């Protein structure tokens, strides 16, 4: 049984400028010990999807229009009352955020912040909690943790703050870790250290990870499965190695071609023309048709293409022409 099953999740924001369709009909599963990466550009709906699982979508203006997210076979995260969600959040599932510079409270010592989940969720006295806090910091590679736990956030570098965030998330040994662009704000050498750390923890604890990223290199490094999102929809879903080797959806193909590869020495990059559509004014039909090099007349009509199984049943693609790479664009 999967640890988390998300089915037909749809999230809209009702704003003065109209309805922003942030996530539409999103479905995925995460098994125990598995890492799923959700890949997408800004506005693709990847963050909203995860925020709604943690009950962090501000309502209003946001509204979960439909769908379910069954955690551990029993609890629907989207419908359970706040008190029940509070027993799971920070205990059985935890989240780390993109920006380590602003996600810690500057007024509180690291100590108070790292042990906060323990003090809330477990019947533990403060001294034991601090002891576990020091241990958690050591686990994520903060040197001299017993002394450093007394410091304030500004005394830490960006990479060290992200380690503190991870220690805080992991101190209750959650079954699911949601990591929203955990390394985007960090330098590459620090990013590499944090990725190594996450890989290590995965091996040691059999924790499941839902990783949000825009970096396909990180997917190759860390993920077992990938879901690629575009304009609020999953457009392609596959095991990570399979997808990176042979992407099928024209968007995924375009995305991979537009990344320069070290040592490739291509004269020009192949870019995707145009920009990501505004989620309040999505086009009719396939949401990618305006930028697609394979678009046909029927791509501009509703209903939009459905996610269909491809290559046996190992993967799913939202494009009726996924198996016709030779097609040329026929619409203006």
């Amino acid at each position, binding site marked *: 049984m999967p640890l988390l099953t998300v089915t037909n999740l749809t999230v809209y924001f009702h704003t003065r400028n109209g309805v922003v369709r942030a996530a539409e009909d999103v479905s995925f599963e995460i098994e125990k010990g598995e890492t799923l990466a959700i890949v997408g*550009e*800004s506005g693709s709906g990847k963050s909203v999807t995860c925020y709604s699982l943690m009950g962090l979508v501000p309502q209003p203006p946001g509204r979960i229009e439909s769908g379910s997210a069954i955690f551990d076979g029993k609890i629907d995260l989207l419908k359970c009352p706040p008190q029940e969600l509070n027993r799971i959040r920070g205990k059985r599932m935890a989240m780390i955020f993109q920006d380590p510079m602003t996600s810690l409270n500057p007024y509180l010592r690291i100590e108070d912040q790292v042990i906060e989940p323990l003090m809330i969720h477990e019947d533990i006295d403060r001294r034991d909690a601090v002891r576990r806090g020091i241990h958690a910091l050591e686990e994520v590679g903060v040197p001299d943790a017993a002394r450093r736990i007394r410091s304030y956030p500004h005394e830490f570098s960006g990479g060290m703050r992200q380690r503190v965030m991870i220690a805080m998330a992991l101190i209750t040994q959650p079954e699911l870790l949601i990591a929203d662009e955990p390394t985007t704000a960090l*330098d*590459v*050498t*620090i*990013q*590499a250290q944090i*990725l*190594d750390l996450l890989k290590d923890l995965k091996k040691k604890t059999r924790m499941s990870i839902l990783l949000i990223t*825009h*970096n*396909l*290199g*990180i*997917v*190759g*490094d860390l993920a077992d499965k990938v879901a690629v999102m575009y304009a609020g929809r999953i457009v392609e879903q596959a095991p990570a*190695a399979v997808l*990176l080797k042979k992407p099928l959806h024209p968007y995924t193909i*375009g*995305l*991979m*071609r*537009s*990344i*320069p*590869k*070290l*040592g*490739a*020495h*291509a004269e*020009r*990059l*192949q*870019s*995707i*023309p145009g*920009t*990501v559509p505004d989620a309040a004014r999505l086009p009719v039909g396939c949401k990618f048709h305006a930028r697609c090099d394979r678009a046909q007349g029927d791509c501009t009509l509703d209903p939009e293409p459905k996610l269909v199984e491809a290559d046996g049943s190992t993967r799913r693609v939202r494009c009726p022409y996924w198996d016709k790479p030779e097609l040329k664009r026929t619409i203006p």
Partner: protein
Amino acid sequence: MSLVEVNELKAHFPVRAGVLQRPIGWVRAVDGVSLAVNEGETVGLVGESGCGKTTLGRTMLRLIEPTAGEIRFDGQDITQLDRAGMKPFRRKAQMIFQDPYGSLNPRMTIGNIIAEPLRIHKLCANKNGERERVAELLRSVGLSPEHARRYPHEFSGGQRQRIGIARALAVEPKFIICDEPVSALDVSVQAQIINLLQELQEKLTLTYLFIAHDLAVVEHISDRVLVMYYGKIVEEASAEDIYRDPVHPYTKALLSAVPTVEPSEKRPRIIWPPLGTTAEQARASLQQKKLERREVRSNHWVLEEVA
């Protein structure tokens, strides 16, 4: 002859403390950098945050006054020139900034943003000529002349970066410093801007100093690459060489840290600073030891300790 030449350039900033705000130390953001950029080439400058790459770029244009050293442009020493003397140089060297949201004045129309450098340098005889020139510039970066009447907030990040490029091109510069021009953009838009910069370079024979932290992007666009670490250039080589055969341990660490799509292309991870040392010690050793540039292969330079 090189278009831009920098010799032993330094930019140091005092760290002040106490009531009298006396300097108690110095941040050596740029610490004795020498480099040369030839006409028509792209030189990439990579390094992690805080290494001084942006300060180096700004000091080269004297947007920050150098503490010591010499900057030569087209053979002329511009280090000592006064404001009026700098004006012809300002036309020949321009900058494209990282943040397409913060670098355009939100209260000015796109037309005025692009026309401002034209007015400062009095490049158009009348309003009509100016309008035509702005339209031409907009077209050259893939926008339409109608966009001139709109305001920055109506544009996406990629489009704003195109506007920033059009503004830089307005004065027909020879040399452009691109400071992280694509790092704030979405992946699918990054490639468009990189391609645009390359097309413009060929069409207008531009010379670029391309500053970035993304090694793959730098390697793609550059002819030569400089690796910067704590205010110094630690390695310099052709883009191909530096990728295939890095020499300095910091360059090796940087390359091995890039996550790759193909697991088979993975380099063995090299840790920097070396195990058992801290970043602080690595910096101290770089600043206190006697270092020298050595040519390890033809046109491949490494900063090494002198025994």
